[in-house]
């Protein structure tokens, strides 16, 4: 897409991703991953989750370090606001997944990105979680993502980038499609 001859670099190693795709197609059992988070109650609605290990490629892996995430409810819900609400973490997950996808697809399509910003909003009627109206669902009614992208590409190519990122996004899929969830007690 660029006519300058400067190699496109969004910091994404697409050669490695394409190599992984080829290797995993040949050995599909290695493609099974399990992601994991543990969540501990601290006090009130305040919790701390830790993400450290996951499995895949037939073995256990550890992140470079353990990452922690504090969640809480805001003061207007009579809480201490020690962190984002769990529902906001869903927006964080969606925004970061789609934005990473835009970068990866852009690299593959040789589009140089300069700036990408995604604003994610979700509409929720809290009468659902308060149990005040059985007709209202607990979760988001609508989620909107607005991308602002500065890149060396036409408006149509940028639209196609964003569409392809949604098509290949794990979190977009997890939110837009039903997923079996099993909760049990040890």
């Amino acid at each position, binding site marked *: 897409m660029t006519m300058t001859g400067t190699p496109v670099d969004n910091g994404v190693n697409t050669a490695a991703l394409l190599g992984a795709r080829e290797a995993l197609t040949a050995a599909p059992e290695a493609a099974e991953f399990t992601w994991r988070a543990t969540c501990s109650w601290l006090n009130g609605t305040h919790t701390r989750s830790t993400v450290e290990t996951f499995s895949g490629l037939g073995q256990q892996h550890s992140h470079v370090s353990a990452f922690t995430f504090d969640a809480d409810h805001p003061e207007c819900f009579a809480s201490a606001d020690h962190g984002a609400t769990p529902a906001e973490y869903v927006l964080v997950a969606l925004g970061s997944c789609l934005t990473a996808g835009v970068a990866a697809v852009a690299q593959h399509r040789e589009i140089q990105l300069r700036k990408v910003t995604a604003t994610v909003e979700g509409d929720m009627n809290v009468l659902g979680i308060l149990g005040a109206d059985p007709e209202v669902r607990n979760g988001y009614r609508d989620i909107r993502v607005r991308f602002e992208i500065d890149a060396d590409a036409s408006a149509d190519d940028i*639209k*196609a980038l964003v569409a392809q990122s949604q098509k290949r996004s794990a979190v977009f899929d997890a939110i837009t499609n039903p997923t079996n969830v099993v909760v049990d007690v040890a």
Partner: protein
Amino acid sequence: MHLPVVVIGAGHAGLAMSHRLTERSIDHVVIERGEVANSWRTQRWDSLRLLTPNWHARLPGAAVSGGSASRDPDGFMTVGEVAALIGSYATTIDAPVVDRTTVTRLGSHGDGYRVVTDRGVWTCAAAVIASGGCVAASVPALAAALPTSITSIAGLAYRNPRALPDGGVLVVGAAATGVQLAEEIQASGRPVTLAVGEHVRMPRTYRGRDIFWWTESAGILDERHDEVDDLVRARHLPSPQLIGTPQRRSIDLNHLGEAGVRIVGRLGRIHGGVAQFSGALANVCSLADLKLDRLLRTLDDSAGASRIDEIGPPERFEPTRAPRSPVSELDLAADGIRSVVWATGYRPDHTWVDLAVFDHRGRIRHRGGVVADAPGIYVLGLNVLRRRRSSFIGGAAGDTAELADHLHRHLDLTVHAGTPSATGTARHERLLATHATRRD
């Protein structure tokens, strides 16, 4: 009985191969489970016409392109006309068809193969699997959760709306089958909900010419299996949203919406009588619109500026009007839905092939129809087998010519290699490697 070649399936592809073998004086039979063109006679709905115009459906050695000389080259054959065309083709080329004979097993036998049927056994040096790409319905596993009070019917079993109960109908899938069935079922007075996943939007005519005229003249259907950017994706692409009618009209989600069809996202789950649909409808519509525009730009480029007088100016189509907040959950019974039609695709049935030639998804591994894991085995009529054209009736001519050449070489090698099979195999591989440079 022993023969050099057994062809399994007397549809257009198996018969075209038969013609190619006859041209090369290679003795063979064509084994057919029913009558010639069996799936066209027994597995297609009443109103179906071919998606490709008559001029496109050329078979090698057939008397006249598209069958009878009186046929409109720009028309679309009905199912009965297709069956008649293939039937008369079998007669024209004098194909050695053994009909009403079902193959129950294809296994190896020495250096060759053994074809077991309900009416005898054949042994052969080579076998051609031409049993059809669209003979079994791909119904998703989630269909098992459908309440038993709701009628469930796969696309292959559907004939016409009258066979459905009165009341609402959920049509799952929006490829050619899904959009065609949604339209005719809605017109029968049964309100249709159409579950739409990734789809391919395509106008019937563009700048006054049939879309197949365009894809042919732009060379798109000539693209080879080893040139396609992503072969797995190309082979699994849904069929385009097209219908063959005498009016040569288009069919897309906007037309269906205007006809009153309710458009929802891909069916994700049925649980406790409630169907849940994907919230990604807007994106799959946007992907299809963007892809259509890219296709039209490719076609415009192929025509060049000089021909505008001849074929009219470029057109662009209105974006898909996807509902802003589509229904994401439906209590099927409460919504009045009495039946579900699974237009979720077709697949070949190769369950009788008892050879180690399958990948982890149960598909025959082949390179352009050559099954390398079983020398002498060939497969025909699958999506993008050798070219994008392969699964169309008009795709058989090129594929069978090239595969018959490959098969002919295989027979020569088998005969010349002599009996010691280890030496034979080594020689075989060496010679095939030499031939590979000819771009088979």
